[in-house]
C-alpha cells in the first residue's frame, strides 16, 4: 500500500509511531498529483510550500507535539479563500485573485497542523453538477476518464478518490459534495446549515451553502468535522450549539434504529443499477438490525423547481459584488452558467415577478421543510440514492441546462430544509462506475449519520476499492 492511500487515522498512527514522516507522505501525494495531471483535479498545486510545511510538521512531531491533523496533506476546493494563495472559484473573473485573508475553516485546518497541497477544480462559482462548467477545463472521473466526476466539488472528490491527498474540503448548496462523492466511491458530508462557518468561502446561495468535506471513510469524516464545526463570530448564521465529539457514536451500530425510505425518492426514472445497489444497501442495514419503513415526503417533486428559483436569486445577489473595481476582472469574464443564473435570479427578483416566483418558492420551502420534520417524528434517519443516474459521459448534458439541473433531484431538498446528509459508497455498476447512498437526519444529527454510515461501511467495505490509475 502506498502512503498516499492511507486514511487520516492510519497516517496519524504511522506518524506517531515513526513508521513514516509527513515529508514522505506529502511527497507521495504530490507525486500522485503530478502523475495524473490529465484528471485536471487541481487549479493550483502548492508543491514547495507543502513540502516546507511537511518538514516543519516532522520537527513538531519529533518534539512530541500532538495536533489533530499534524502533518496530514489536505486539498481545498478553490472556493475557500487562502491568504497569499490564488483563489479563483474556477472563474476567469478571479483568475489572478490572491486573497488577503484565510477562510475560518482554512484557519482551523491549518491550526490543526494540516499541510495544504493545493486548490482543487470545480464548476465555476460552484454552479454545476458535472464539473464541466470550470473555466479551467473539466475534471475527469478516475474510474472512467470519459465520464464526469460530478460537481460542483469535482476536483476535491477526484483528489481524494485518486489518493492525491488524504481529505479535501467542499461546499454543498444543492448536492455539490454528495453527488461527486457518490460518483467517486468516497465519503462526502454535507453538515447541518450553520454548523460550519461560511466566512471567507466564496458565496453561492447564502441560505443554502453548507461547508463540508470528502474523506476516504466515515471515521475520517467525523474526525474532520471535529475540527471544522462550531460557532464563528464572523458568520452570523453559525449555530451556537457547542461542537461535540463526532466520533463518539461511531461504533454503536444500527440495531433498533428506525430508518425510513422516502417513497418519492425511488421513482420510475431511477437508473436500474442505482436502484439495485440501493435495494442491496437496505438489505445490509436490515441484516444489521435496523428497522426499515417507507416514509412519504410529498413535496419532493417540487424540490428542483423551488431550488432553481431560490438559488439563482441568491446567486444574482452574491455575484453582484464582482465589478472588477476592488479585485478581479469585470463582468464580461463570467462564463455561460454564471450568466444564466445571474439572469434567472435577476428576473425572479425583479419587480412584478418577485411574488409569483421568489415568494412562492420560499413558501414551498416551508412545505418541504415540514415534510422532513414530520418524517423525523417517525424515524431516526432517512436513506436514499444520491443521484438518479450513474456518472454520465463528459459533454452529454452540457448544452441542456435543465437536464443538468435535474441530476440534483434527490439532493436539493436536504439543502432547502437545512438538514445534514452523509453520502457513502454503496457499490458499483457492472461497468465499475461508483454508486452512492445518502443518510439524512434532522438538524444537528451528524453523530447519528456517522453511526449509521460507519456500521454500513464496516459491513460493505466498498471504500477499499480504488480506481486503476
Amino acid at each position, binding site marked *: 500500500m502506498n502512503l498516499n492511500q492511507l486514511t487520516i487515522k492510519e497516517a496519524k498512527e504511522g506518524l506517531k509511531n515513526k513508521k513514516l514522516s509527513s515529508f514522505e507522505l506529502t511527497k507521495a501525494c504530490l507525486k500522485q498529483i503530478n502523475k495524473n495531471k490529465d484528471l485536471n483535479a487541481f487549479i493550483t498545486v502548492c508543491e514547495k510550500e507543502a513540502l516546507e510545511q511537511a518538514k516543519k510538521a516532522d520537527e513538531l512531531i519529533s518534539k512530541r507535539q500532538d495536533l489533530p491533523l499534524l502533518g496530514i496533506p489536505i486539498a481545498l476546493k478553490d472556493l475557500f479563500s487562502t491568504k497569499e494563495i490564488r483563489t479563483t472559484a474556477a472563474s476567469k473573473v478571479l483568475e489572478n*485573485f*490572491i486573497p*488577503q485573508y484565510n477562510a475560518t475553516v482554512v484557519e482551523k485546518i491549518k491550526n490543526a497542523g494540516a499541510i495544504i497541497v493545493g486548490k482543487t477544480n470545480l464548476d465555476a462559482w460552484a454552479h454545476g453538477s458535472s464539473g464541466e462548467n470550470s473555466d479551467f477545463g473539466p475534471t475527469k472521473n478516475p474510474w472512467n476518464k470519459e465520464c464526469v466526476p460530478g460537481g460542483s466539488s469535482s476536483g476535491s472528490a477526484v483528489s481524494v478518490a485518486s489518493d492525491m491527498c488524504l481529505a479535501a474540503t467542499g461546499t454543498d448548496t444543492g448536492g455539490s459534495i454528495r453527488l461527486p462523492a457518490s460518483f467517486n466511491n468516497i465519503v462526502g458530508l454535507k453538515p447541518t*446549515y*450553520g454548523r460550519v462557518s461560511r466566512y471567507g468561502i466564496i458565496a453561492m446561495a447564502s*441560505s443554502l451553502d453548507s461547508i463540508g468535506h470528502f474523506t476516504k471513510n466515515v471515521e475520517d469524516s467525523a474526525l474532520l468535522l471535529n475540527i471544522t464545526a462550531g460557532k464563528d*463570530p*464572523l458568520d*452570523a*448564521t453559525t*449555530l*451556537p450549539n457547542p461542537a461535540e465529539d463526532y466520533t463518539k457514536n461511531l461504533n454503536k451500530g444500527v440495531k433498533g434504529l428506525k430508518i425510513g425510505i422516502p417513497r418519492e425518492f425511488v421513482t420510475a426514472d431511477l437508473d436500474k443499477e442505482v436502484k439495485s445497489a440501493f435495494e442491496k444497501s437496505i438489505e445490509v442495514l436490515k441484516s444489521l438490525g435496523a428497522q426499515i419503513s417507507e416514509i412519504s415526503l410529498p*413535496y419532493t*417533486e*417540487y424540490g*428542483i*423547481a*423551488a431550488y*432553481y*428559483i431560490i438559488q439563482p436569486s441568491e446567486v*444574482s445577489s452574491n455575484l*453582484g459584488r464582482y*465589478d472588477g*473595481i*476592488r*479585485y*478581479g476582472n469585470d*463582468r*464580461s469574464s*463570467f462564463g*455561460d452558467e454564471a*450568466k*444564466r443564473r*445571474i*439572469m*434567472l435570479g*435577476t*428576473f425572479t427578483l*425583479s*419587480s*412584478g*415577478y418577485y411574488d*409569483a*416566483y421568489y*415568494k*412562492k*418558492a*420560499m*413558501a*414551498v*420551502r*416551508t*412545505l418541504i*421543510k415540514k415534510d422532513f420534520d414530520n418524517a423525523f417524528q417517525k424515524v431516526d434517519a432517512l436513506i436514499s440514492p444520491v443521484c438518479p443516474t450513474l456518472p454520465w459521459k463528459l459533454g452529454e448534458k452540457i448544452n441542456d*441546462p*435543465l437536464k443538468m*439541473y435535474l441530476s440534483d433531484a434527490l439532493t436539493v431538498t436536504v439543502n432547502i*430544509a*437545512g438538514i445534514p446528509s452523509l453520502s457513502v459508497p454503496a457499490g458499483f455498476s457492472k461497468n465499475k462506475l461508483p454508486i452512492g447512498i445518502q443518510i439524512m437526519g434532522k*438538524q444537528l444529527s451528524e453523530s447519528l449519520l456517522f453511526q449509521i454510515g460507519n456500521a454500513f461501511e464496516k459491513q460493505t467495505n466498498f471504500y477499499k476499492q480504488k480506481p486503476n490509475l
Partner: protein
Amino acid sequence: MTNWKTKPVYQLLSDLALSYNISMKIDVPRVAKLANLPLRQEEKGKFEKQLSEILAYVEKLKKVDTKNVEITSQVTGLENIKREDKIIPSLSQEEAISQTKSQHNGLFKVKAILE
C-alpha cells in the same frame, strides 16, 4: 385577488398572464441590463431559449397550494445575532487595495458616476 388600483401596469400584465397559466417569455436584454451583464448579440437567442425552458419548468410550483403558508427565508431560527462591539485588527490600506488594477494615491480609482 389582484388589487387593480395599486399595482403598476407591467405587474398587472404579469399577474394576468400567471393567472391564465400563460408562460412568461423572459426579456433577456432587459434582465442583462438590470444585472449589468454585457452580452454578445449571438448569445441572446441561446439564453432566451434556455432560460424560457427553465422558467417553463418552475411553473409547476403553481400547482402547490401555498395559501396561509408562511415563507421560509432561513432555516436556523436564529435572530438578532450580533458580534461583540470590540475593535479588532483589520486589513491595512495597502492590503485592501492590493488586488485592484486601478488605484490612485492608495485609493480605488473608479470611473466618474456623475457627469
